[in-house]
């Protein structure tokens, strides 16, 4: 027990592929249909690169979908197309009755209020010259038409929800004064500020220490369950995908090679690429004998009494 006295015990993040939302989701489905992205520079006559090849899937209202693949699989390109940062060469992306690939300028700006992105690099996603408070306030002022004072108050609330307390102290800090995990929490707070309907999380924990990942993933899972958000979780790490998502889509060289319920796909993979990804997950226990011993067997002493 820490010297602070009474300490609340939180259960470890449990992923059973059976998450239930606590609120009904009012988010429209995101439908990706026949989307391809080919990079070709005709002026320079470079060879065309097919980043995404005829991909189709749907993110149901309130669903958590994991998009997995190694680098070069096209998942980041897909993320950019879904959030409107890039336009597909072919195919369509529909969010409710909006055609995402046709959005421009103001319509695109309004779209950002509904679809937000969480970046991979906590060190690059925050402007080094702006305070944390400023970063979280801006979406409130821009999208929710709040005055600076109201936005400031909301920013403090958001910082508190992501576990950065006392919020007044954190709001005044500059990014380089925070650790990687804390920065990522700020990024999440900022993404949630405008009450988005869909969050695209692009490798949100791969640059964080392993001991910090569960905390950040728990935040994502919690917000999704409480607010009925849809979540697209992009990663190469199957463990994170398992813990956060219900559905999984495996991408290899721009094509979908496997998809289905997360637990099902991971326990019974059909494609060799999926198997390769599974083997790449660092699992110290699989190295020993393939079967994972129960957590209690890990420690050399009898299991501790639960704290609560």
């Amino acid at each position: 027990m820490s010297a602070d006295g009474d300490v609340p015990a939180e259960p470890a993040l449990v992923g059973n592929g059976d998450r239930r939302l606590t609120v009904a989701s009012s988010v429209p489905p995101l439908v990706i249909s026949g989307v391809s992205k080919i990079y070709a520079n005709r002026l320079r006559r470079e060879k065309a690169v097919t980043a995404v090849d005829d991909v189709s899937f749907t993110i149901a209202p309130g669903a958590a979908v994991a998009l997995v693949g190694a680098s070069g699989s096209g998942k980041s390109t897909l993320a950019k197309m879904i959030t409107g940062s890039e336009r597909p060469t072919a195919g369509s992306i529909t969010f409710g009755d909006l055609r995402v690939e046709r959005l421009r300028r103001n319509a695109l700006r309004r779209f950002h209020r509904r679809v937000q992105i969480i970046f991979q690099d906590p060190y690059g996603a925050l402007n080094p010259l702006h305070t944390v408070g400023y970063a979280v306030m801006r979406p409130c002022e821009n999208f929710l038409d709040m005055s600076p004072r109201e936005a400031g108050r909301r920013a403090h609330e958001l910082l508190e929800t992501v576990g950065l307390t006392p919020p007044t102290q954190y709001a005044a800090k500059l990014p380089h004064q925070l650790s990687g995990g804390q920065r990522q929490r700020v990024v999440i707070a900022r993404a949630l500020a405008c009450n988005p309907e869909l969050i695209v999380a692009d490798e949100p924990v791969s640059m964080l220490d392993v001991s910090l990942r569960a905390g950040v993933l728990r935040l994502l899972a919690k917000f999704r369950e409480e607010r009925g958000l849809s979540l697209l979780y992009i990663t190469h790490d199957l463990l994170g995908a398992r813990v956060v998502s219900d559905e999984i889509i495996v991408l290899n060289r721009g094509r979908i090679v496997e998809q289905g319920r997360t637990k099902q796909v991971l326990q019974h993979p059909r494609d060799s690429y999926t198997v390769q990804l599974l083997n790449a997950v660092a699992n110290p226990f699989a190295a020993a004998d393939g079967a994972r011993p129960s957590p209690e067997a890990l420690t050399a002493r009898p299991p501790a009494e639960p704290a609560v």
Partner: protein
Amino acid sequence: MTVLLEARGVNVVYEPVRGVRIWSVRDVDLTLEQGEFVGLVGESGCGKSTLAFALTRMLRPPARLDGGAIKFDGVDIATVEGEALRRQRRNGFALVLQSGMNALNPVRTVEHHLGDVLKAHARKGERFSAGAVRRRGAELVDMVRLPESVLYRFPHELSGGMRQRVSIALALSLQPRFIVFDEPTTALDVIVQGAVMQTIKDLQRDQGFTAMLISHDLGVVLEATDRVMVMYAGRIVEGQPSKALLRGAHHPYTEALLGCYADPRADEVRLGEISGALPDLSLPNTGCPFEPRCRLAEAVCAEQMPPLSPLGEGTAACHVRAREVGAAVEMRSVG
């Protein structure tokens, strides 16, 4: 087994011109035997890379070795400089970095890099003809499982994994007795990581050099190494044979860290975390550095630094665990 490297009381202090002093490595003792493959594990800020740099004399200002003895093959290397240090570098130790693949000169072929290394460390009168360089090159790239054609390529023509193998080959070229691999696969694509790690493991077994693998990834380290040391806040808190650590950790930090890994294929997946943050490394700490985040913490933990005491098949620095083992031993001897 002969001892290759022996370090006692190593401290590294980081003194920027402007800002506070930080002790990134505190009071580290370690011994490496010849032919061992040792892992050094810890999270960001624990000082593992700094320690490795200190052991191979690669520290640059504002980092500085602040006391401690480092003996390589019986020779004190903590204080040697200049030509004597270069000689140690020649066949003593080598370093493979995470960004090693980016350390290759983009306008020179692999062959040229190799020639550079060989000629720089050539003994007096030793000459390396183009043919000799090519022959040695073919040997080395074969060792790292690359085709000979790689010798004539430029770095940008090779993939990340291939470039990392090239930097490993360069490290091997002088037949060092000790190689430090600092996060050699972290910057690589996740699928390539396994293959490169396997190559490193095979090389170590076949060539027999002493190797140290530094990583934040406990899984990778436990798989590849014979023995593992866990670092926290600049100190070594546990040292166990890898297989033993798999069966159970002794230090609460290692235990908590193991709990952060899980098998995604299991029916029920539990992912742990360690909340809290590292202690302030600019202050000397009196008690155990992990105490504020430790579920076993007691009063003594905040007051006294636990020594590395024998626990299980290795050592661990924990008051509470050491006491339990002591009690168990007593009970056994009594009953």
